């Protein structure tokens, strides 16, 4: 733009701001820092920040900001040119134990022991795809727009798949994940999580678990495909560096292996989830969700209505407290899905429509919730505090996947939104 700028950053984001300025070509950007947060502070407290010292430099804050705009540039600040960041040697040679430690110390793992990615293991992985090792699979960033995206090849994805303990049979699914560029470690202060729904015959070919304990630590394919996603999200885009490329305030245990959800198609009353996204039943597809986390569950006890529990009513009540920044992903045991079918919900769309119409909130409640924005557009100006409006303006905010082993009419709710569905077959 050619106009001098002085960024002010709260100190919690210092490392992120400095490294991101460097990655964007302004390593000497003149940043001034305030204590963190400014959110929720009184005017007097904020003025005290301005009249106090920058907590990083120790210098008076506002004179520093003014100086950032008026102090002549140094030669270094006027530099031009191009730099290629280093990523290290292509291989490392040491004992197995020392390599484990090296990978751990350099932030290349999820902090748990890995399978050492030897050439032999990577070659075996590469045989599971027809794609060439040097083909670029995609581009990934810890947060779209905030960080420059990295690229990566089929071989680099294979190295990460080996590290996670995946077998070659799982590799096309892992490549499909990588092809989307979706990081499982999205850098938000909200400690967000990712989910992937898997449909098609590949679920049985890989012997994935979609029955009892499907989302627990009981199946190699479910676990290692999810783990590979997390390890890729550290290594293929420079993500997962706490304070720099990962800012989740509390972190989230789901990030270890993510929500991998092979749908229980055979026990579902509805056509498979991926067919609602334009795919054929026989296609192998992976569909992605993103959002806060699983926030709630509802079992059989407490539903209490006979002869058929009003599952839809319970689902509406349970979703009501959700923030509306993301949608609602319901993970339904087949007992619940079939119960909903018995109640007349013959399609997922009919259930979504019912929930959209019957899950409502008052305008004043929406106003009181962060990330629960009011409807936009001209009608927003006419809304009164006591008006009742739909929780989400569109029915597609509600998504349903069937998973579980029918030991309990249970459903779990994730405050997550659908993103995209991609072919796994393309990567075989």
């Amino acid at each position, binding site marked *: *733009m*050619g*106009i*001098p700028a*002085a960024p*002010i950053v709260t100190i*919690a984001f*210092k*490392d992120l*701001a*400095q*490294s991101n300025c*460097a990655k964007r*070509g*302004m*390593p000497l950007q003149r940043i001034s820092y*305030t204590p963190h*947060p400014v*959110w*929720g*502070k009184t*005017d007097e407290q*904020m003025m005290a920040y*301005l009249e106090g010292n920058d907590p990083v430099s120790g210098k008076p804050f*506002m004179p520093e*900001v*003014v100086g950032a*705009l*008026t*102090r002549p540039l140094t030669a270094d*600040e006027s530099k*031009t*040119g*191009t*730099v290629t*960041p*280093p*990523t290290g*040697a*292509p291989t*490392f*040679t*040491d*004992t197995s*134990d*020392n390599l484990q*430690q090296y*990978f751990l110390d350099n932030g290349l793992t999820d902090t748990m022991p890995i399978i050492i*990615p030897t*050439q032999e293991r990577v070659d075996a992985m590469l045989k599971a795809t027809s794609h060439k090792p040097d083909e670029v699979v995609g581009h990934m960033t810890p947060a779209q727009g905030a960080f420059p995206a*990295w*690229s990566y090849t089929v*071989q*680099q994805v294979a*190295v*990460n798949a080996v590290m996670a303990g995946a077998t070659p049979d799982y590799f096309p699914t892992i490549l499909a994940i990588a092809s989307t560029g979706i990081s499982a470690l999205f850098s938000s202060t909200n400690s967000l999580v990712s989910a992937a729904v898997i449909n098609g015959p590949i679920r049985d070919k890989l012997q994935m678990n979609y029955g009892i304990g499907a989302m627990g630590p009981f199946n190699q394919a479910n676990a290692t495909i999810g783990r590979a996603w997390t390890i890729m999200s550290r290594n*293929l885009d*420079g993500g997962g560096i*706490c304070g720099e490329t990962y800012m989740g305030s509390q972190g989230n245990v789901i990030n270890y292996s993510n929500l991998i959800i092979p749908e229980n198609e055979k026990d579902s009353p509805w056509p498979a989830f991926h067919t609602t996204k334009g795919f054929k039943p026989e296609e192998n597809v992976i569909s992605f969700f993103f959002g806060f986390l699983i926030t709630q569950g509802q079992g059989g006890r407490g539903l209490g209505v006979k002869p058929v529990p009003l599952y839809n009513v319970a689902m509406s009540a349970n979703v009501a407290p959700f923030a509306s920044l993301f949608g609602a992903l319901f993970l339904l045991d087949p007992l619940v899905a079939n119960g909903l079918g018995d109640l007349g919900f013959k399609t997922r769309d009919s259930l979504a429509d019912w929930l959209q119409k019957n899950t409502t909130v008052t305008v004043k409640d929406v106003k009181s919730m*962060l990330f629960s924005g009011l409807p936009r557009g001209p009608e927003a100006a006419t809304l009164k505090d006591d008006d009742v409006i739909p929780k989400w303006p569109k029915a597609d905010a509600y998504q349903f996947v069937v998973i579980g082993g029918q030991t309990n009419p249970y459903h779990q709710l994730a405050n997550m939104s659908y993103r995209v569905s991609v072919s796994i077959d393309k990567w075989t």
Partner: protein
Amino acid sequence: MSINRRSLLSLLGASPALLAGAAAAAQSKAKEKPGKAPPIAGAPKIVALNPRGIPPPITLVPMAKRLDTLDGKTVYLVSDGFPGADHFLAQVGIWFQKNMPSVTTVYRLKAGGFADDDPKLNAEIKEKGQAVIMAIGH
């Protein structure tokens, strides 16, 4: 081999002073910490492949020429939309009124998400302003 800030900033010619901070200290500690497995006599050495992807090249961007003074100038106070930034910048405006009354401040909320560009606002600033103070964070 990791692309930490130290190696990156060093490549770009940044001051070591920029590296002061918790994350840099944690990185240093991670490398120094004990816990390496004791060497096993005769343990064979193996070759592991690097799992890293390919970062894009960095093009250095020269910073915009600074002003001689802010006296009589218009400074845009731009919020990236995070909670509290609007109230904070209002206080910045009050500070200028009290301490540098010849400076005119104009508050604007940048359109889009925190990382999105706002070409319309950029054009306005270029036409009507001489400097920008931007609040980033929570």
